[in-house]
């Protein structure tokens, strides 16, 4: 009777790879790992035209664990200000395995901008965090876990790369960064890195097959997935242009004056916040040290007012207005300059 138990053992094989259909990639999570699938067939028959009792036969197997995961990055840049920390790019991690898993997270700099621009700098610090309160926004005190703990089959969670942008980084600089998530056993099962089972079956052990695709920087069927986002600096691009014009000289007066001793020369300093800047430039300080061989003219715009800012006379003394002349230096402060706006500073000197 016992011989009716079918028991074919596999022969010695160098490598055995289970053939999965190509439709795998499009399938959903699938039947939970560990479920027993049981097939019971029945045969009915008669002998001498007399119907006999039905007979059954059964074949079982256990559903294996199929590891799969995806990461989705934002569709465009996260804009950042130079010299700031705590800048976060959110990624959606989805566990498309048929079993719960932990996921380890890692951030790395990438030289390729996923949005088609040119990566030209790296953040000074890259950290990873899990969205602890599931609100999609990085909050430093709340989102403190750095690994994903027991994400259920077919569930998603937001994870962040959090970076520090160096100070002084030019406007429109781009730093691409890549998040990699790697499948680990759940905390209850020890949290170790998940490995794929190859070769012969091991009795009574649930086996694991990797079915993940290739992400930006990882291979298909490696138990990991990666995707990239990028920071783009949106600072203000401030430029300065200085021109000089000779206004008059003692010999020619104001008609075709020349740069001879005694001539009055006007300097004009134009500070511009580029139209393409994303933000106003703030707390601008323009300083201009008088060159040798000229003398600052202190009363050009009224007694004691040698500086003009956009048509408004500024006194030379250090006071509440925006201009000062002291120790041979013109200093003008501009609290804020909107994108595409300019400030024009004018003053005159005499050629010694």
């Amino acid at each position, binding site marked *: 009777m016992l011989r009716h138990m079918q028991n074919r053992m596999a022969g010695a094989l160098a490598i055995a790879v289970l053939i999965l259909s190509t439709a795998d990639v499009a399938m959903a999570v699938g039947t939970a790992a560990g479920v027993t*699938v049981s097939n019971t067939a029945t045969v009915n028959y008669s002998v001498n035209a007399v119907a006999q009792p039905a007979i059954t*036969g059964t074949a079982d197997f256990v559903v294996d664990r199929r590891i799969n995961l995806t990461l989705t990055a934002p569709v465009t840049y996260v804009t950042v200000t130079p010299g700031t920390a705590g800048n976060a790019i959110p990624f959606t991690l989805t566990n498309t395995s048929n079993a719960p898993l932990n996921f380890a997270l890692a951030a790395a700099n990438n030289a390729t901008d996923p949005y088609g621009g040119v990566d030209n700098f790296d953040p000074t610090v890259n950290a990873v965090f899990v969205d602890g309160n599931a609100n999609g926004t990085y909050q430093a005190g709340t989102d403190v876990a750095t690994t994903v703990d027991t994400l259920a089959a077919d569930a998603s969670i937001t994870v962040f790369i959090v970076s520090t942008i160096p100070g002084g980084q030019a406007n429109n600089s781009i730093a691409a960064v890549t998040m990699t998530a790697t499948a680990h056993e759940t905390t209850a099962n020890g949290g170790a890195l998940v490995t794929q089972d190859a070769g012969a079956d091991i009795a009574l052990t649930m086996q694991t097959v990797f079915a993940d695709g290739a992400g930006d920087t990882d291979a298909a069927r490696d138990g990991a997935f990666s995707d990239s986002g990028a920071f783009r600096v949106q600072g203000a691009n401030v430029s300065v242009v200085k021109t000089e014009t000779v206004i008059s000289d003692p010999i020619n007066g104001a008609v075709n004056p020349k740069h001879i001793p005694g001539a009055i020369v006007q300097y004009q300093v134009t500070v511009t916040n580029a139209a393409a800047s994303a933000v106003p430039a703030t707390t601008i300080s323009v300083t201009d040290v008088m060159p040798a061989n000229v003398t600052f003219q202190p009363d050009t715009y009224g007694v004691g007012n040698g500086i003009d800012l956009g048509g408004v006379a500024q006194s030379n003394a250090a006071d509440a207005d925006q201009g000062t002349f002291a120790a041979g230096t013109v200093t003008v402060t501009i609290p804020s300059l909107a994108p595409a706006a300019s400030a024009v500073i004018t003053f005159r000197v005499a050629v010694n």
Partner: protein
Amino acid sequence: MNKAVILGLALLLPTWGMRALADTSGAVEIHAIAEVEVKTKGPDGAEQIKREPAKKVPPGGAVIYTLRAENKGAKPADDVVVTDPIPEHMDYIDGSASSVGTRLTFSVDGGKTWAPKEKLQVRGKDGVTHTATAEELTHIRWQFEKPLAPGESRSVEFRARVE
């Protein structure tokens, strides 16, 4: 009474992941096995496709079920019909059921009515009636065209995919 004996025997068998048991109380026995196709490299390095017992199969994996009816009795078995409910968590793979020497029919209503697959009509959720899809089948049935002689075995097979 025979059934009690068989249950006793079942307890003695090792509890391996793969289980294939047959009811042995009548002249005809039916043996069911589940296998998978495995790509292997033989010792000479050439790639081969072999069948191995299905022990652990991940979602998306295809399983080949082979059902073998064997006449252990001394008299011919007539009107042999093998009926197999498609297992839970499995989807029948269209066109995979063998049919040589049998009349092959399917059911979509749990085994109440039977017809060739292309004749089975199902009313969808949208109220429109359509020909049954592979996923909607509930049972497969093979009616043997000829009796099973004493000592003869005949096999049928089909494939299904783990959901």
